């Protein structure tokens, strides 16, 4: 009886060890994939901001991708996440983050949370991230995911992102990850003097222009077209460059 018990405990321990080993190996493997993705598709493509590169190497993208698509999580490609939305191509996430020229103490607002991946990348770099998602199921799942991954400096709200988040304004940077027909003036108003906003503007399901909006110290606003992209509407994200 006792021997049987010992055998059972031993078998259980073996199973646990195997599971842990497989988990560790899998995590290491995914980390390698992530490093490879950053090296080949982001650093080699011209992204040089070390904070952005480190963040991209740290955030586990596969955790933000639906179970059935996880095998492709580290391809340089957008992936569907349900509700008519996609998670961005990693390069675009890195590019949009870089053009914001973020500093550690910055406060950033993101419009279009989606899976929460972009918010996690921002949270690796700055102190405060506020992210708004209009689809309640996406907002809920992103909040839960970010909480599980211990991103305590991210706050998620289900709401209309057009009007920003006035309680936490002004922001050092605004990032819009949805195709917008025009630049929402409330977001411009909530941008600090010297702040930067990046937003894809143009028709949905076609090529949009990624636009950098800069507010100078006097509050004057100028724009600059950065590159053509393709975003899905409202809460979608970039697909390619």
């Amino acid at each position, binding site marked *: 009886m006792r021997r049987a018990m010992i055998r059972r405990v031993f078998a259980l321990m073996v199973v646990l060890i195997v599971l842990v080993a497989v988990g560790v190996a899998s995590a290491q493997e995914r980390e390698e994939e992530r490093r490879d993705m950053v090296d080949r598709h982001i650093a080699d493509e011209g992204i040089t901001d070390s904070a952005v590169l480190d963040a991209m190497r740290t955030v586990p993208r596969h955790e933000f991708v639906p179970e059935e698509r996880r095998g*492709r999580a580290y391809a340089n490609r957008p992936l569907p996440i349900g509700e008519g939305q996609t998670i961005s191509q990693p390069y675009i996430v890195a590019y949009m983050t870089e053009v914001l020229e973020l500093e550690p103490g910055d406060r950033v607002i993101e419009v279009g949370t989606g899976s929460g991946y972009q918010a996690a990348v921002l949270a690796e770099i700055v102190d405060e991230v506020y992210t708004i998602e209009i689809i309640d199921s996406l907002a809920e799942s992103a909040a839960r995911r970010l909480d599980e991954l211990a991103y305590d400096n991210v706050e998620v709200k289900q709401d209309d992102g057009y009007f920003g988040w006035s309680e936490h304004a002004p922001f050092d940077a605004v990032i819009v990850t949805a195709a917008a027909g025009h*630049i929402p003036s409330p977001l*411009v108003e909530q941008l600090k003097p010297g702040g930067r906003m990046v937003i894809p503007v143009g*028709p949905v399901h*076609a090529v949009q*222009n990624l636009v950098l909006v800069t507010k100078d110290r006097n509050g004057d606003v100028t724009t600059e077209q950065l590159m053509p992209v393709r975003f899905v509407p409202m809460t979608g994200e970039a697909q390619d460059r």
Partner: protein
Amino acid sequence: MTPRAGSGDRVTGAGAGSDAGGPSGGSAHAHFSVPRSSAAVFLVSTLVLALQIAFIRALSLDTYHHFTYLVISTALLGFGASGTALSLARRWIERHFEILSAVLLVLLVVSSAFAYRVAVALRPDMQYVLFSSGEVLKLWAHTLVLFVPFFAGGAFVGMALSRFRTRVGLVYGANMVGSGLGGVAGVMTAFVVTPYRMPVVLSVLGIAALVLWVTAWPGYRRAPFRLFTTGAFVGSVAAVVVGLVLPFGSSVDQYKPMAQALRLSRQGDARHVAQKIGPRAQIDLFDVPSMHHTLFAAPTAAAPPEQLSLFMDGAHAGGVFRIEEAGQAEVLRDVAQALPYRMVDAPEVLILGEQTGVNVWMALAHGAQTVTVVQPNPQLIDAAREAVDSSVFDRPEVRVVSAEPRLFLSRAGQQFDIIHLASAEGMPAGSGGLASMREDYTLTVEATRAALERLTPSGLLTVTRGMQTPPRDNVRLFALFEEALRTQGGGGAQRAGAAAGDGEEGGAGNGGAAQRAAAGSTAAGRLLQARNYLAVTTVAAAEPLGQARIDRFHSTVEALSMDADYYPGISPAELTERNRVSGPEGGEGSYYYHAAQRILAGEGEREAFFSDWVYNVRPPNDNRPYFHSFFRWDSLSRYIESYGQFWFQRLELGYAVVVVTFLQVLIAALVLVLAPVLVLRRKAPVARGEGGRGAIGWTVLHFTAIGLGFLFIEMLHIQRITRFLGDPIYSTAAVLTAILVFSGVGSYVQGRIGGARAKPRHTGGDGRQESSRMGRLLPSRGMSAAERIRFGGAAVAALALVYYAALDPVLNVAIGAGEPLRFVVSLIMLFPISFMLGWLMPAGLEAAGRVSGDLIPLAWAVNGVASVAATPLSVMVASGVGFFGVTLLAAVCYLVVALAAPRR
């Protein structure tokens, strides 16, 4: 006996319906009523064409232009595939003719009722289809399901043509008239039934055809057929009833904007307010507080007012403002479209193609005295009117005209201070789909000249359009306005001459581009172009722009946070950078500035610019009215080099979709045509003796040529008469119906002229024809099939060329007449060529059938495949070399038909 002698309206199954091989004897098919069978063919043809419209409507609502085009084109290959199947299994099919034909009708009814529902379940993830083989498989399965009813309908008609080939004129006539009325039936049904329910409702026609078909055959009353036919009828009715009773939820693709509104409705953040169904589009209005539509607003503009979101076929068409006075929409003072409105005081405004009324509010906000709105879709205006308590379209200053913008411009009338091309507004198509290959007769040189003629002396023609990167739409618009101004005759030429003088004078002070421009082009003094971060506004003036107006342009550009890219006298030193966009390396200013300078620098430089530019930005004209197509084959390597593996996402996908569709059809054609050809070549009696193998080759040639030619001519006339009649939906339906019905009449008449009067040299004792090769006709009087083919082919070829030269001048004489008269003129013009078109299919079938019944299914397969291939081919030819090229190609097709006709 002769094919018809002694049979009256009935044709013996063993005699008239088969050749030497004949059907199996002893079955119950003693007699078939040919008129009743033809009526069944008529109904099936009506159903199949109406079903095509129904599927297009449903797919347009649920998916995207290019997807719809690809799927429908592939599904229509069902016709060709049915001919191939008939060809490969002809003997077996003939042995089981009665049962099989009824089974096909049941399949047609059931698949019509359920195919779309099943296809929705199989639809791939649109954003992922390029990256996943699983999604590609789903795409094929989805298409295959929609293929089934076309296959069943095509096989049924093909079997009827084979069976009753001595009465082929009547059967084919029924097919054509049915198809013609199918167009009308489809359009009319679309007004009263939602796209999802249309296929189910239309499948009732299949049940009627089934009843006619089985009652055309007396044997159906005998056991065991009675049980079968009763079961078929009950089963079909049950299928339709179930199809109607089962609820239809929205299956709009998850990535379409309306899907977002539906999602927000489900979570309580939006409300579906109204819906209008119709053949042009399904219009839906949602109250979605989180959608804030105002095209091209400046970053610092006020937030747009409360609005309803209007969707056309699931795509966002704009907002309907819930305001009572223009002053309540402060944002409209700060949009790029406002540029010309700030340059003219109290204007009389014409807005072409306005959809939701936002531009009307903007005109009123800038003090417009009157606003005339021209919109071809009255349902759109009605929807916008009914959605709000106080519609801008009901204001006393506003007049709404329901017409095609081009037709409105062509007819004499009022002049305006501002003509605003709102139909060209909106965001550019980009790679958004097949829309890039649609003809647009408002954005051609001829249409622009017509608009310029409708301007008052101080008038402005204006268009605002979203920016593309790299630039193409707005560069083409500038080139279009430039060419229209440069080639304007009469008063326009005088104005242009004055413009040149003004340009030189105006540019003297600046010493810049204006002098060069004025020297190279008389249009230089009458053009303006400026952009904000999002859109470009291009303006052409009726008269030369003096310094005062240029100064006003400058102040307006600054007030709207825009940057000027062209005005008479512009110099590099005056360029601003409020909105930075890319420009040529080492050059000054943006690409728009660069393009304007080169377009205005004289013919040589302009031509060099058009040749250099990576996209095709030449101005479109009525011969090639493809404003939205910018693709250039010779730039392909540059696209791939610049954009890498996703280069196709950077282009207007329309052209690529057309090419891919054509190639796909071509590959399918090889399989669908070669398979029966290879089988027939080994088969007696076709391959044996005089005229055997030649007959196979002739069959392929003849039916390919008429399959292509018919569609080419149909396309040409739909285009030209639609412009004459105005409403694209009604006129397309009317023209399509007229061509097909007149062809059906031609088919019947040619049968009376020739087929009935010719008889075989030898007939067997059982009435079967003994002829087994081409040319065994012995005309007693009238025309043989060969003679009808020669005459018909030559007539259509000649008429195609005559129509190209004479149709427009004749139509222009009547363009000022009322709608009824224009409709009658259209019918009169369409009759001769359509009538002759109807000769060639039945005469060809008759000639082929005289050689061997095996050739008839082959002919059906070839014709089906060629008809499907003709659609993308005609678009490719029209966009490449213009409609004249399509005309020539059609004439060549029919000339080949005439020259290749059998000798006797």
